[in-house]
């Protein structure tokens, strides 16, 4: 028991999909469990409390996987506790690494979001307009508290020191397996790196026209289509058909899964190495393969909010990380 690697999982502001990816290791997980011991997994899988983590001695956990973005004061607190208790912290999944889709919430203020979430959605029944409060007195005697809502979404590395990053929404389980194997064998990149094969989605995509002998070659984007406007051809590169795809700038640890089911890449894998602002790079790349100004304007008409388009998974990690 003693020489097993102690692992902890902590979910912040996320959907627990990344933790499902761990469970999806299935038979591999059984093998892996001979080498690791899960000492903390909250608030999802294990029956442990936050106080259990707080009472561990510092550096007790060898590797901590933290998934989800940071939006509540509770997230900030728990991330800090986990940093103290763990020797290595991995930002697990795109939310922890770049902010994730929830990061787009930073383009709206708290009122907007609360009105939408707790009042204006068709399925919400809230005639009195009650919103969650950080503190509430029930029946005059029960003093209840909820975590307070921060004014913007943050990535994990904006709160604590992060050792490694793993992209994906969620990370593909084969990628998780590769990462865990690398961890157990000590075959890790320098601190601060993404754990990735370093290849772009295009590199692993079967549609990639480069180097193919079918005479297709690379061509500029000469029209803009959205997936709601029709079904793309299953063989041809989506970009060349006009469906904007972020494959060229996204890490392809997923094996190009979305492309296999005719869906363009939206960048959950995180930026390929050497790039610090995903959305700006997406804009740059798309801008350089669009045929002319007219098509650019077609794009701007069809996509009503470019910030949400280019920064789908990465807004809080951007140079301008929120609505200004």
């Amino acid at each position, binding site marked *: 028991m003693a020489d097993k690697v102690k692992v902890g999982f902590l979910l912040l502001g996320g959907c627990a999909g990344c933790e499902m990816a761990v469970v999806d290791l299935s038979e591999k997980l059984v093998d892996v469990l001979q080498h690791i011991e899960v000492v903390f997994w909250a608030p999802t899988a294990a029956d442990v409390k936050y106080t259990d983590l707080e009472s561990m001695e510092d550096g007790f956990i060898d590797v901590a996987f933290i998934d989800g973005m940071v939006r509540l004061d509770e997230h900030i607190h728990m991330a800090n506790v986990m940093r103290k208790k763990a020797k290595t912290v991995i930002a697990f999944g795109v939310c922890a690494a770049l902010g994730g889709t929830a990061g787009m919430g930073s*383009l709206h203020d708290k009122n907007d979001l609360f009105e939408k979430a707790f009042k204006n959605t068709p399925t919400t029944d809230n005639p009195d307009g009650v919103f969650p409060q950080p503190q509430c007195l029930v029946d005059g005697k029960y003093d209840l508290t909820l975590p307070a809502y921060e004014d913007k979404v943050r990535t994990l590395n904006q709160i604590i020191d992060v050792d490694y990053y793993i992209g994906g929404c969620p990370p593909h389980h084969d990628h998780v397996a590769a990462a865990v194997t690398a961890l157990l064998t000590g075959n890790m990149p320098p601190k601060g790196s993404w754990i990735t094969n370093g290849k772009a989605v295009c590199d692993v995509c079967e549609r990639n026209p480069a180097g193919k002998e079918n005479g297709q070659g690379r061509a500029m984007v000469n029209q803009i289509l959205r997936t709601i406007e029709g079904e793309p051809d299953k063989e041809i590169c989506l970009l060349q058909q006009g469906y904007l795809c972020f494959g060229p700038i996204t890490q392809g640890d997923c094996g190009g899964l979305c492309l296999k089911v005719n869906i363009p890449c939206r960048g959950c894998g995180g930026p390929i190495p050497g790039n*610090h*602002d995903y*959305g*700006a*790079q997406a*804009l*740059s790349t*798309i*801008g*350089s393969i*669009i045929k*002319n*100004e007219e098509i*650019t*304007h077609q*794009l*701007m008409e069809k996509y009503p*909010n*470019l*910030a*949400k388009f*280019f920064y789908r998974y990465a807004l809080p990690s*951007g*140079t*301008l990380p*929120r*609505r*200004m």
Partner: protein
Amino acid sequence: MSFTPNIVGFACQWCTYAGADLAGNLRAKYPPSVKLIKVPCSGRVKPEYVLEAFARGADGVLVGGCHFGDCHYKDGNYKTKNRTDMLSQLLEDMGFDPRRFRQEWISGAEGQKFAQVITEFTEELQELGPNPLGGQE
């Protein structure tokens, strides 16, 4: 009191940078508000550079390139145009005033135009006031 805005200017070495040079030779007058950064081509300016300049407090950013058809690398400025149009929209979608971001075609022979662009841009920025993001200095 009007302030002197801080403009970060990315200037293509084949045209706008030469245009700025010519403005100097012509003794053209323009406000001392622009800090020029020479780039090989306006297409070299990553949108990230522009965002970074704003994040660090630049009041305005100017990208200067060659007129269409004049690009030393054939189509660099067409790419610039695609990007700057989208970038302006992106800034607006992020709640940042896109008037702070300007893209101009200034050839090596247009020293006067360079001076005029800087003068106009400076005046516009004076009306808009300082960059709301503050910056480091």
